[in-house]
């Protein structure tokens, strides 16, 4: 039994459960769809205005939608106290964290892939900068959101009002990453500046916070 094998087994189990219930993906999609449609009708921006605001709009929509999925992540483990079965086993705690983070990453990436065409249509978006950079920003930015989100969702599972606790703790700590995602996306869409600095900052943010979360997760898992 290795971290890799337990991570794979846990991820497989989570994907199978999500495939059957579609709880997380449906609620994320519905929420993100609402944001796209309502903002589009409320502001009715021109193509140039869209390029300026789309970075912020897209990432705020994904951040809020991701919180919905993140809250579901650990709720499954609390039902029937299944988390205790994991805690009494010799399986490495970090394998559980990695599986949950990778699962959430996949859910949010699927959401982004489904929502991207809608953003293009509703906001009449055309990227001036290279498109591949948007993909890099999406991957790095999404990991930044879910790695902290998965960790703080685990931290708040034993609190009474965990649905409120998660955004309260997650959003302030995500501000540097959110700034990086928004500025990099806006730079690529408008072509006004190079997104390189923000992409590097996102990469560093991801490495630092992944390492910190992995270091601390065992204490969080075994907290009473």
């Amino acid at each position, binding site marked *: *039994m290795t971290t890799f*094998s*337990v991570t794979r*087994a*846990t991820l497989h*189990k989570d994907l*199978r*459960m999500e495939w*059957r*219930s579609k709880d997380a993906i449906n609620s994320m999609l519905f929420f993100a769809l609402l944001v796209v449609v309502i903002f589009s009708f409320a502001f009715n921006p021109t193509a140039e205005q869209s390029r300026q605001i789309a970075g912020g709009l897209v990432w705020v929509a994904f951040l809020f939608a991701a919180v919905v999925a993140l809250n579901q992540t650990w709720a*499954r483990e609390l*039902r*029937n*106290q*299944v988390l*205790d*079965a*994991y*805690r*009494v*086993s*010799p*399986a490495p705690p970090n394998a559980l964290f990695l599986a949950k983070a990778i699962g959430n990453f996949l859910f949010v990436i699927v959401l982004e892939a489904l929502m991207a065409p809608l953003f293009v249509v509703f906001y009449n978006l055309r990227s001036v900068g290279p498109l591949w950079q948007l993909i890099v920003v999406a991957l790095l930015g999404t990991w930044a959101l879910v790695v902290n989100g998965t960790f703080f969702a685990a931290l708040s599972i034993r609190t009474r009002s965990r649905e409120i606790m998660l955004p309260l703790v997650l959003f302030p700590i995500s501000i540097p990453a959110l700034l990086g995602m928004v500025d990099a996306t806006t730079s690529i869409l408008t072509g006004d500046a190079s997104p390189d600095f923000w992409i590097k900052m996102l990469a560093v943010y991801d490495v630092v916070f992944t390492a910190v979360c992995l270091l601390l997760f065992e204490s969080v898992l075994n907290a*009473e």
Partner: protein
Amino acid sequence: MTGNTDATPQPVLVLDNLIKFFGRFAALRGVSASFAPGRLYVILGDNGAGKSTLLRVVAGLMQPSQGSVTLFGTIKVREVAHRVGYMAHAPLLYDELSGMENLHYFAGLYGSQNDVVCGNAMQRVGLDPDLSRRVGQYSQGMRQRLSLARAVLHDPDLLLLDEPFSNVDIHSARDMAEILGQMRDQGKAIFVVTHQAALMEGVADEFLHMSAGRIVARESLPRISPGVEAAR
């Protein structure tokens, strides 16, 4: 050859002045005891006596406020986690998965994902491994049986069972008690927290009575041989 065949077996579990506080409430108040392998212990006591807390501390789900738990000669419970099976009052199963899918996943946590092992565990508790129904649609008795299968899946040397017979019909409960007796006969140490002492009378080796966070009495019982049991 100098081997001593009469040597007392090494205890599987030693509790030393175990104290557990929840805030200002002491759930365990200085529990000290030693337990041998190959014996089935039944823990009895009123609600709030500390039975479930004791099992959770031994399983490593809670840290004692004071005192120590020594499992298989070590105080590092995590190092011997693969030798311990735990069944809680809640089923510790995923409602969205089938019985076999549940067992397959939990077997993976112990380094094995063998279909034969999972199938045997289900058959041993009287469940059909081919049952494709999800656990959320199981009856309470079936959940308890599957929960027992999950706890014994990795063939643990120490089994901690918290109210395994709750909401189980009398026939199923007797079957489960018989299975526990067989496991004890294989040399495993088994702890059963229950309010249904009568069910365990023919199987248990010792009754532990708990009250207000202490073990107040230990009552050894003569083991009934299978022949006598059959003649009853």
